[in-house]
């Protein structure tokens, strides 16, 4: 730090940074992107390994054999479901009781803020059924959860059947050290949310539910099962949870170890692993898998039932059976054995899963990128913001240079006035607040005056406010404080740069993917904008780099990576539904992406927009 406390050398360093600012920024940006893309290259990643000793050395022997019986239970369940026209609560209670479990039910109801068009529901009312298998000689302090959703239509019956089959088999074993909760939840995520809130006796989302009667202590881990066919070709592991939280990497290792042992094809992001990492195709494949994970994590929504457990510090993952046209099929008995093995290993745990990583990206099921490797990519991007801020700070801090140039009004420039700074900040944030609150609040009004449904009203109001926000700030700013000064926009930009750097930094700490994606588009916009560039062209560029458009690109990219490309109009429709889903996820499960974008990121972007139109 002697370098900085010596004024001469400090001056030399700052002048270097100021002089070479733009090239350094460009290099940083390119290096950041290159680093990120390099993460998918296999030699740069680490091989996964089991960190938890309690799960590593003791291989268990799987003996589950009643897969056929599980399938017949599944058919019975399907018949009962059809008969009742929903969740067959009484049948489930009776069946679980017959298997020797302590059975309890929980009914819940939830009013959605506006109808969910993709799932066609508005007022949700349902009942969860769960049975607790009490471990012998255990004091009810620890539990594991196995869950399967009772989905509408014909899907997921096999999952419930297998769950009940496993319950019967587990009941006759003596080695359990933790209670096992078998949960069949109604209305997928909403039911799961109700159950979890009931179990932990909290109320974060305004759900109405009846209190739970039976509990089994603190839940150590959970597995959620989705199976819709009698045989499957592969099992897909879903990790991404609410707000981009991920389960401990050991849970992934556990799944992979048993898939290997039992010879089941296993995938992540629906993509099989390839062995030819040194070819272009191999690398592209890994990069696609990793990008899918990044996009899913950035969305902040739970991608399976397990996603809601993570909030409660319960390691959880969803296992999804896929039946495609491959030759090689796996039967229910083998899946049952996989689950038996996983649950037995989890049962052996002495402590919660904590040994392995919580922050990682996976280019394939056996390779991972830990936080230490991916954070530099993000750090390089945010460094640009700091460098630009430094540049501005130096420019602002040396008025002597301006004096020597003969521009006389240094007195006026040195005090840009708090008001002229505060006005754009406050106004952009008010726009953000409007974007956050108005769509849901004004849906009734919109439905009365325009021929749209509630959902459309919400989405279109959001887009309208978003667009109106573009016109607001600079107009108002001119109205209130008259002419802006040269010094003024520089101070404002300095503030905005630091604000964006802090904002992205905090976001990336919690949800790396979201932070990184936002940084990729917002950083160039923030770095380049000044009032002196050609207005029309840069306005278009700014809009293209705004958070809203970022979401749109992500949708196209996601569809492309999933090998289901969409046309522009389909993409637009998807965009609309993603916005409504984002608002709903926030209301139903407490996902933070929508408030983050509307209350913080969008206002921050508006500040830069404001600078572009500085008078």
């Amino acid at each position, binding site marked *: 730090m002697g370098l900085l406390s010596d004024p001469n050398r400090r001056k030399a360093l700052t002048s270097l940074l100021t002089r070479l600012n733009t090239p350094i920024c460009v290099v940083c940006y390119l290096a950041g992107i290159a680093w990120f893309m390099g993460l998918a290259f296999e030699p740069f990643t680490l091989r996964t390994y089991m960190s938890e000793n309690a799960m590593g050395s003791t291989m268990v022997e799987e003996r589950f054999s009643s897969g056929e019986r599980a399938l017949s239970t599944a058919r019975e369940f399907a018949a009962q479901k059809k008969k009742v026209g929903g969740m067959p609560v009484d049948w489930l209670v009776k069946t679980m009781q017959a298997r020797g479990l*302590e059975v309890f039910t929980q009914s819940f109801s939830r009013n959605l803020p506006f109808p969910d068009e993709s799932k066609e529901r508005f007022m949700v009312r349902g009942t969860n059924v769960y049975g607790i298998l009490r471990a012998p000689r255990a004091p009810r302090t620890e539990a594991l959860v196995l869950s399967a959703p009772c989905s509408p239509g014909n899907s997921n019956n096999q999952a419930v059947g297998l769950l009940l089959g496993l319950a019967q088999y587990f009941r006759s074993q003596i080695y359990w050290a933790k209670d096992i909760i078998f949960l069949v939840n109604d209305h997928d995520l909403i039911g799961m949310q109700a159950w979890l809130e009931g179990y932990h006796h909290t109320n974060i989302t305004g759900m109405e539910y009846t209190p739970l009667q039976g509990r089994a202590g603190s839940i150590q881990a959970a597995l959620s099962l989705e199976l819709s066919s009698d045989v499957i070709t592969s099992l897909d592991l879903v990790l991404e949870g609410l707000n981009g939280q991920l389960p401990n990497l050991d849970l992934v290792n556990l799944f992979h170890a048993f898939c290997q042992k039992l010879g089941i094809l296993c995938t992540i992001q629906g993509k099989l692993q390839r062995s030819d990492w040194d070819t272009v195709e191999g690398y592209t494949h890994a990069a696609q898998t990793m990008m899918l994970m990044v996009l899913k994590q950035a969305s902040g929504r739970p991608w399976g039932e397990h996603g809601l457990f993570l909030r409660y510090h319960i390691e959880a993952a969803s296992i999804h059976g896929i039946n495609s046209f491959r030759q090689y099929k796996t039967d229910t008995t083998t899946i049952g054995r996989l689950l038996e093995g996983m649950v037995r290993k989890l049962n052996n745990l002495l402590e919660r899963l904590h040994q392995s990583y919580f922050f990682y990206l996976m280019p394939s099921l056996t390779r991972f990128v830990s936080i230490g490797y991916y954070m530099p990519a993000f750090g390089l991007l945010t460094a640009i913001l700091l460098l630009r801020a430094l540049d501005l700070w130096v420019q602002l801090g040396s008025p002597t240079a301006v004096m020597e140039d003969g521009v006389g009004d240094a007195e006026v420039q040195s005090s840009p006035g708090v008001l002229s700074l505060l006005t754009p900040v406050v106004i952009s944030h008010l726009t953000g607040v409007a974007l956050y609150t108005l769509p849901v609040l004004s849906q009734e009004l919109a439905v009365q005056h325009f021929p749209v449904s509630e959902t459309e009203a919400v989405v279109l109001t959001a887009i309208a406010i978003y667009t109106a926000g573009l016109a607001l700030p600079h107009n108002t700013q001119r109205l209130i404080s008259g002419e802006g000064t040269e010094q003024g926009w520089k101070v404002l930009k300095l503030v905005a740069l630091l604000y964006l750097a802090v904002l992205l930094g905090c976001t990336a700490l919690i949800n790396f993917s979201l932070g990184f994606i936002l940084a990729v588009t917002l950083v160039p916009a923030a770095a380049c904008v000044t009032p002196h560039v050609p207005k029309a062209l840069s306005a278009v560029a700014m809009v293209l780099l705004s958070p809203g458009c970022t979401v749109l690109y992500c949708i196209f990219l996601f569809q492309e990576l999933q090998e289901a490309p969409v046309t522009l109009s389909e993409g637009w429709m998807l965009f609309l539904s993603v916005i409504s889903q984002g608002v709903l996820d926030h209301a139903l499960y407490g996902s933070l992406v929508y408030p983050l974008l509307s209350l913080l990121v969008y206002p921050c972007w508006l500040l830069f927009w404001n600078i572009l139109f500085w008078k």
Partner: protein
Amino acid sequence: MAALGCKWDALFVLALASLMLSCKGDDLKKSNDYTESVSGGEQSNPHAVKADDLQQNEADGHEGEERDGGGRQWQPTGVWMGEGPEHGETFTAPPSKDQFQEEMVLRPLHSGDIYASFQFRTQWDTDFLHDGNKASHYRLFPKSLGQVLSKFSVRELHISFTQGYWRTMQWGQPFIPSPPGAELWVWFHHTVMDVDENWKELTNVLSGIFCASLNFIDSTNTVEPSASFKPLGLGNATDHRFLRYATLPREIVCTENLTPWKKLLPCGSKAGLAVLMKSEKLFHSSFHSQAVHIRPICKDWQCTSTSWELRQTLNVVFDLYTSGQGKKEWSLFKMFSRTLTEACPLASSSKVYVDVTDNKGGELFDLTPASPLVSTAVVLGDRRTYSVYDLTKKETFGQLRSLNPLLRWKRESDEMLRPLLHAERYVSGFGLQTGEIHTCIYNNHPYRAYPVLLLDTVPWYLRLYVHTLTVTSKMHENKPSYIHYQPSKDRVRPHLLEMLVQLPPHSVTEVTVQFERALLKWTEYTPDPNHGFYVGSSVISALVPSIVAMDTNSTHERPLFSSFFPTKEESSYFMRVYTEPLLVNLPTPDFSMPYNVICLTCTVVAVGYGSFYNLLTRTFQVDEPSTPLAKRLANVIRRLRGVPLL
């Protein structure tokens, strides 16, 4: 409703008050009534002997009741049914000072499981506490325990080791409840000067005797409950300074604890009921609990002198699903892989009871061989019928010279029980900063309210916010009539909360209190900190209105003149309910790489923060090159002279 509540409150307080004054005058005599009858083994009247045994059996179930003041004048309510003249000859114990009795109760449970409860009672006629004479002669009483009693001046000692949680909703009430893990409570004699020192040494000694981790009992988990644990034996000690209570919820009970426990028996595991105790079977069960209770009792009718009673109990619940191998039948052999062939020769009585109450007309299960002896008693507030097998009689063993009662289930009964009183406890909330402990107490009595004493011991590292303590029943606040709270001291003592709460009929009373999780010092974490930290069970003690009293319409078993006013001992019974222990996660540092963490933190703090602070707060100026020494000297001289400096 409120008036009724007050009345019951008052009654309970009265009961407590009478307890304080117990064993003076009248009360002493009352207690004599009871102890006389249980210790009267030498009488030759067969009827009397049987009645005594029955009483004994009932007393087992009523362990707590007799401690609760009025409960002492307990009377037999048993009726002998299958009594014939052929049982005229009875076993008479040798007239000696010490006595030993053994018995086992088998109860087929509602869920299809089976509950086996052993009780061994050794009576030791010596009185070292009063006379100051050292006890040196031991016959049946184990010397190891006798020496401990005299050395540490123990009045009463209760210790239990339990593996598993008693499932009240499926199994009903246990005869002697115990919390998961180890529990120890001791009343010291009032002559003890330094109770804490005695307690500390005692726990260490017991730790050695029972091969258990009782040495982990220290001041941070020891409390002195003011009302929940009263002496069960003789004595008027009510000053709770002489009481110490501690639980170790983490204690794991296994064979190593069973072996020393078996060694305390006069016959060991060589003969009598104890041959059944093979650990590979006892620990292949849903619930296992073993206990030792020592208390002073009256030796004779007048209670002129006292003697010691050692009661060893062992409770096991066998699981229908895992050990039944698909068949719904139980036999002694199936449960213990042994059968009974003889009584312990030192025992004055040795019996096996099988609960056949629910088997009216033999529709629930078949019991073979059928026993000619049947006894009825009010156990835990309910009238129960038992088949009795007397092991001291030859004909019990039949042709095969072994006794192997077989119980075959005929139908299933799967719906859960609704016990009159039960409780559950859990931690709510998420995150590692705060949380809330919920204790739900269910009163399932249809029309009677009754008070319960709730004892909560919480370790210091959960900092209770007592101002958030709420007690609600039926959506209304329920103000406890008695609260005893002792705040914790960090690293010294735990929180102690005792409350007397009135439970309205047919209600759930919820006691909640918020807490904050403390950040421990890094050496204070256990080797497995991510497992979590245990909070011991809450204890709920209550006088519960009995099922017998509920049934006011039953006149077919009793004469009319006896059934209008409920008698005290039938109207309510003492019950203790333990909730499940809690497992709470505390904020835990990442111990897997402490070195990295320490290095990183130090670097960030020292280099990053320090120098940035320096840069931000200082103003930097270019130093003028220092003046040469000669010039400075010249300046000093010039200043003295008053001329301008160079």
